[in-house]
C-alpha cells in the first residue's frame, strides 16, 4: 500500500508569520493536532503541533522532575501562554519538516509517525508543495480495509 491510498487531500496550513494564537484557534476549530507551516509557494518548511506549544508553556525544569502533581497550580500555564500567543509560529515549529510523498510506502509513513512521535505527516509533491496529510488512524483504517480485500 502507498501513501496515496490513505491520503487526506487537505491543504490547510499556517504561514510562518502567523501567530501562535491563530494556530491554536485553527487547530481547535478543525480538530487538528498540528499543521504544516508553508511558504508563499505552499512549500512545506516546518510543522507545528500542539505538543510544541505545550512544551513552550511548561517550565523547562519540569523535565527534570519525575512527577509534577505535587506542585501547586500557580497559573503558570496561563501566564506563559499569554506571553507566547502573539509570537510567530516560526519560533516554535519543528524544522526541517518530516514529509512523505504520495508514492512512498505506507510502512515508511507508519515508521516515521512512530519514530518521530507524530500524529500526522504532511504529504508533498515533487516540488515540496503541500498536497495533503496522513494520520495514524488513516494508516490503520487503510490496513484494515486492505485486509478484507486480501
Amino acid at each position, binding site marked *: 500500500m502507498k501513501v496515496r491510498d490513505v491520503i*487526506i*487531500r*487537505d*491543504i*490547510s*496550513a499556517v*504561514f510562518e508569520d502567523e501567530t501562535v494564537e*491563530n494556530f491554536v484557534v*485553527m487547530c481547535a*476549530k*478543525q*480538530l487538528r493536532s498540528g499543521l504544516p507551516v*508553508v511558504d*508563499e*509557494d*505552499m512549500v512545506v518548511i516546518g510543522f507545528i503541533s500542539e505538543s510544541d506549544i505545550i512544551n513552550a508553556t511548561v517550565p523547562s525544569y519540569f523535565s527534570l522532575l519525575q512527577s509534577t502533581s505535587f506542585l501547586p497550580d500557580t497559573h503558570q500555564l496561563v501566564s506563559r501562554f499569554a506571553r507566547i500567543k502573539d509570537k510567530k509560529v516560526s519560533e516554535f515549529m519543528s524544522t526541517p519538516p518530516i514529509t512523505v510523498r504520495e508514492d512512498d510506502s505506507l510502512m515508511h509513513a507508519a515508521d516515521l509517525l512512530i519514530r518521530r512521535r507524530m500524529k500526522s505527516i504532511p504529504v508533498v509533491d515533487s516540488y515540496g*508543495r503541500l*498536497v*495533503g496529510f496522513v494520520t495514524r488512524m488513516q494508516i490503520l483504517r487503510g490496513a484494515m480495509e486492505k485486509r478484507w480485500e486480501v
Partner: protein
Amino acid sequence: MRVLTVTLNPALDRELILPNFAINKLHRLRNPSDSVMTPGGKGINVSMILDSMGISNVAMGILAGYVGRIVEEELRRLHPDITLNFVYTDGETRENITVIDPMNDTITEINSPGPLVSERELEIFYKRYLMTLPRVELVVISGSAPPGVDEGYCLKLVKAAKSKGKVVFMESIGPFFDRVLQKDCPQVVRADLRKEKRVLGHELKEFQDYVELAKEIRRLGAKAVVLSYKIVSDVVATEEGVWKFTIKDHVEVSHLLGTGDAFVAGMVYAVLKSLSYYEVLKYGMAAAIAEIRHLRKSELSIEDIERELQSFDIERIE
C-alpha cells in the same frame, strides 16, 4: 489541481422526498433513502460534479462549527479526491432544506443566511486563496456571501485571479455580483435567477429584457453569459451573438435541483478543453440536461453530458 472553486457560504443540504407535501400537516418519511444529507453550496456542488467527471479540483470556503465539520467530513467521504482548503469561523454553517414533492412536481426550499464572518477570517481566507491560485488554471466563484462579507470582497477575489491570468467563472446574484460585473467582469457569467430577477438594476420581465441584459454583461467584458429563462430555456451570449437554448423534452420541476451547478461544471470542462465559448455554452446546457435526468443532485460523467448535446433546440436571436 486544475480548478479552484470558492464557496463563501457553504451549506449542509438536506433533501427530503415527501409526496403530497403540504404545510400544517404531519409528514412521515417512508424510508431512510427519502432523507439525504449532502455537502452543499454552489461552488462545492460544482467541485463534486467536476470530481465525478475526473477533473481534479480544490474546494475553498468558510465553514463553521459542528455543521461545518459535517460538511467537510461528508465531502471527504463522498469525494476523497477533491482537495480541501477551508477556513473556519465562529457560529454554525447554514443548513439548506429542500422538500421535493414528486407527486405535485414541486420543490420547496428553506435556506438560512450562514455564520457571521469576521474581518480577520476573511484576511486569512484571502491569504490562502492567493497561495492556491498559482496551482490552478481556472477559478469558479459561486453562490451567496455570508453576513460580514462586504460587496468589495468578491471583487477582490476576481481581480486577484484575473491578474494571475486565470479564467474566472462567476455565478451569483445581488449587489456584490453587480459590482463585480461592473468593475472587473469575469470571463464566464451565469446569473442565479431563482429567487430574484434583477441584475445591474434591470428587472427581467419580457424575453427581450434577458437579451438586452446578456448583451450588457457581454459589453462589460464577459466572453460567455448565461441567463436562465422560464425553466426550459436559457438566453446565452458570446462575442459572436445571442442565442436561445431550449430543452426538447418535458421538464419535471422537481428534477431541477443542481442544474445550475451542472451547467457551470459542463462549461468548465469545455473551457479546459479549449473549445470556443459557443461550444462552452452548449456543453453547459448539455450538462444541465444530464442533471435533469436525475431527481437529486448527482454525479455526471463526460459521456452523460456529450449524450445530451443534441437534446436542445438552438435559436439564434442576434
